[in-house]
């Protein structure tokens, strides 16, 4: 009796432990084989620079995640591409431009300064100026009377 329950426990354990191994097979996708998809760069400074860039790049498959967050296979390959280029000494903004040339502005979460995006950068300044004018109108009147 005791022996039987121990066997059941072992079987359950084996099942639970094997589940995560079986899942990727069910997912019907090849696992990323790129060298730096799931491996950090050995140099912490380089890894920090790569990470800072990766959190601002959009995964082109699961589009509201950055490539740093996403587990999509293509995100892994994009991480590996970014890390390899950082390790080779390439400037992060240069890598961003390389991706924008291929996937458009959509791939970057950080907006680029372009003719179409100038209101984005001008609006805060305009609103501050407007607020300043309004406040001066209010308080200026108050002191004069």
């Amino acid at each position, binding site marked *: 009796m005791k022996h039987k329950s121990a066997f059941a426990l072992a079987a359950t354990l084996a099942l639970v432990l094997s589940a995560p191994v079986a899942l990727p097979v069910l997912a*019907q996708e090849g696992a990323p*084989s*790129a060298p730096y998809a799931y491996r950090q760069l050995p140099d912490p400074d380089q890894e920090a620079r790569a990470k800072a860039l990766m959190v601002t790049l959009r995964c082109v498959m699961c*589009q509201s995640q950055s490539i740093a967050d996403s587990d999509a296979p293509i995100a892994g390959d994009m991480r590996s591409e970014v890390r390899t280029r950082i390790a080779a000494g390439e400037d992060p903004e240069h890598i961003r431009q390389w991706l924008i040339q291929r*996937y*458009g502005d959509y791939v970057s979460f950080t907006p680029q300064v372009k003719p179409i995006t100038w209101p984005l950068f001008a609006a805060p300044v305009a609103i501050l100026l407007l607020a300043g004018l309004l406040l001066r109108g209010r308080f200026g009147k108050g002191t004069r009377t």
Partner: protein
Amino acid sequence: MSVHENRVGENQAGENRGGARMRLGLWLPLAIFAALIALFVHGLLRPADTSVASAFVGNPLPQFDLPAANSERPGLATAAFHSGKPRLLNIFASWCVPCAAESPQLAQLAQSGAVIEGIAIQDKPQDLARFLANNGNPYAAIGKDDDRKVQLEIGSSGVPETFIIDGRGVIRYQHIGDIRPEDVPMLLAKLKEAGA
């Protein structure tokens, strides 16, 4: 008639300036609200397009030399696209379901004289062999792209995607997703266009 109306308008303008401003103050928020609702309804009714188009169309193919994905076909290099004849470049994988769905259309394109080059993404030779046995093999060559190096280089964001490359190796068109039967005449026309 219009002169008379104008005069009335002028007379009232001075007295009613404050009133006009108040009326504007009343109606402007409503107008902004209505404009926002119109924008939201437009956004809700428009079918969502989440595909990421390549920004690289119009550029020459990057230099690459991919090894053969299995023993049935040779590997694929950029040089193949400089033959003077436009070609289709099909990016696919054996693990991709829509790739199997588009295989009759690829066969039809090949029958119509299109040369189809393939790039297999993260595939195993035995899986690929089974896929080709089941779905047919319309490819002239199949390159193996395990790290998606070439896929990233040309701005492709998934499988399947089909590019039209002209005879000088310039990317002319990108078709995202599986090729449906109704896409075949369009692709043949684009291929012809690229050859001119």
